[in-house]
């Protein structure tokens, strides 16, 4: 039994290694994805190009503009412009924010009165617009405290845990690790089995005295190992190149990833039972994977989705794995907080793997 499985595994590895295109895709994909996502996937809102229309032209109004552009949030290096130009600049997307300071700005401030300024925001990108408004409000409050000397006695002290630098890449890399493992193990398993069927070698295998168990194990273990290898490559690059901190336990991460693999390998097997050509297998895998990735909280928080889709995400095993990987890597979470995720992964793993196993052995016979 063990020898049969080893022989099958060896054959599977030889096939991957011999197909140079396949080998390249298997190793190029994770690296390309990691670098692209690592560098690009920043949802930070900064460098907001801001048009300034200053009708007051006083020292105080200029100081206000300066304090607004002091951080890296607002860029106000555009020359002062007329209101008409601001409108046009908005439509050409040259500006995202326009600031209008009315005449009398400094006089009212010096008399300790309230003064209203106008802030126009391009709402096209809803997310950055509301965050930009938030920044402007906070900066204005600070400016007020400094200039009027009046500060509210009740204050709010905030502390950011886990990623105080606010680096998007620290958040994205664990997500990429989780999606890569899902994608590659599902794809390789589903396609390898279908390929044997497509070129007719599955029948050959069936007439040999190999049990279904040996066949399934021989067809899944190699891909699990390749999945772990890809995951390790991504983790290694994440830690060495992107210098992401790793707060938790490596052992736990690998152990729980192993647990999660039952789900992806099972799904891969399931896809292989419902497709007849590699192309179909590929499309189906791709479809399953996109659905899983989109509703896992990888790009956008699940809390933002509509209720019905939020309930749907509970059926997505990747959701639990995503929380697990990010929890372990970023927050140093251990089993005492991750047990709901682990329980869900165990249930999904057992259900999906058993179901696919049964379906597969029925199909083969």
């Amino acid at each position: 039994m063990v020898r049969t499985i080893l022989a099958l595994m060896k054959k599977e590895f030889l096939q991957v290694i011999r197909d140079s295109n396949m080998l390249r895709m298997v190793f190029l994909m994770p690296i390309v994805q990691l670098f692209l996502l690592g560098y690009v996937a920043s949802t930070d809102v900064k460098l907001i190009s801001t048009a300034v229309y200053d009708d007051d032209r006083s020292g105080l109004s200029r100081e206000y503009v300066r304090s607004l552009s002091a951080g890296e949030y607002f860029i106000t290096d555009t020359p002062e412009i007329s209101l008409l130009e601001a409108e046009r600049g908005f439509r050409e997307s040259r500006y995202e924010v326009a600031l209008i300071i009315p005449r009398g700005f400094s006089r009212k401030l010096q008399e300790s009165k309230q003064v209203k300024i106008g802030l126009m925001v391009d709402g096209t990108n809803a997310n950055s617009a509301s965050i930009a408004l938030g920044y402007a409000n906070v900066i204005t409050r600070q400016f007020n405290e400094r200039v009027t000397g009046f500060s509210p006695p009740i204050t709010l002290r905030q502390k950011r845990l886990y990623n105080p630098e606010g680096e998007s890449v620290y958040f994205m890399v664990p997500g990429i690790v989780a999606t890569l493992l899902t994608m590659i193990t599902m794809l390789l398993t589903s396609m390898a089995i279908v390929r044997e069927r497509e070129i007719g070698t599955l029948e050959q295998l069936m007439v040999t005295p190999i049990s279904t168990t040996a066949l399934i194990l021989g067809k899944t273990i190699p891909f699990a190992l390749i999945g772990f290898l890809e995951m390790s490559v991504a983790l290694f690059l994440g830690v060495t190149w992107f210098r992401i901190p790793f707060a938790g336990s490596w052992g736990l991460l690998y152990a729980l990833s192993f647990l999660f693999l039952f789900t992806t390998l099972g799904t891969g097997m399931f896809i292989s039972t419902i497709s007849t050509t590699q192309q179909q297998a590929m499309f189906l895998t791709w479809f399953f994977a996109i659905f899983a990735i989109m509703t896992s909280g990888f790009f956008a928080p699940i809390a933002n989705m509509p209720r019905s889709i939020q309930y749907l995400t509970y059926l997505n095993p990747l959701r639990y794995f995503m929380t697990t990987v990010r929890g372990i890597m970023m927050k140093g979470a251990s089993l005492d907080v991750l047990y709901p995720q682990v329980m869900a992964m165990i249930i999904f793993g057992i259900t999906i793997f058993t179901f696919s196993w049964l379906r597969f052995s029925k199909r083969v016979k």
Partner: protein
Amino acid sequence: MDKVGYIARKEVRHILRDPRSLMIAILIPILMTLLYGYAINLDTKNIKLAVLDFDRTVDSRELVAKFYNSGYFLEPETTPILSDPERILKSGQAHAVLIMPSGFAKAVTNFSQYELGMLIDGADANVAAATASYSRIVMGRFIEDRLPSGFELPGVRISQQVLYNSDLESSHFFVPGLIAVILMMISALLTSVTIAREKETGTMEQLLTSPVSPRQIIIGKVIPYIALALLDAVLILVFAVLHFGVPFAGSVTLLLFFGLIYIVAALSLGILISTLVATQQVAMMMAQLVTVLPSVMLSGYIFEIKNMPAVLRYVSHIVPARYFIRIIRGIMLKGSDMSVLWGEAAFLVVLTVVLLAIASKRFQLKIG
């Protein structure tokens, strides 16, 4: 011209005879529109906030109510165990924990010094930044409400006006961009695969020995896909407007005109890929790597180009989706016309012509 028609008719039969592929070409765009339209929502309006209220007074409860009624914060679904605030964040039950030591009510009435604490889960930098600034805004409003009547807090007040997408709906931003991604995917993927199939099954040689020139073959093969892609574009547009309520401020004709140019660019990429590969499978993988990934990642669809490192910013200039996404967002959301879009339009046209020239050159060289 007749010959082109024959090739086109043959291709249409191929498409109609393979209902599975046809379904993929029509159903997947709709499913993806739904999925992306709902799932990519970066609005930070639903921040889960847990509260540890040690003051337990009318005032403290009022502040908590102010947080939850602000539209930004939500109560966590499960009641967190209150003894350990860090554990609440670690387990992901809440994004932030507000800690109110006793003495809040007294401080509010006497205007004496008092400090509230807030622990924020910084893992998602975007959510953390929003949490930090929104909670300060809510605090500020609470204090202003408690000022004696007639007393006006001195200083600058912002009166804000949001243009174009004044409800700040992020689906209005993402769904139009999705058209660019899906058109690229469908056009480039289908063309590269269909040409690779002729190569793989050996029927390309048969076609070439017939009295049809390579140029006629390529035009004939591509025309049905242009129609299919345009159909997809219209479907997604209808879906975007009717289902997601995305406004359509500009001209439909202008949009479809640019859509056509963009489709030609995508098809050229598909032809180019087909000349580089021998099998359908590699064609498919390559199409994903060369067309879909850049269209999603480097086009400004989700991630802003100005935040990218310089190298990738330069690379983004040769991604057709970059220009088309700006055009489509401009036309739909802002009602822009040629007077403001001419820059993007010029780039898109030049890029399309270059891609088309390279693709047909390579096609004639490799296949003709």
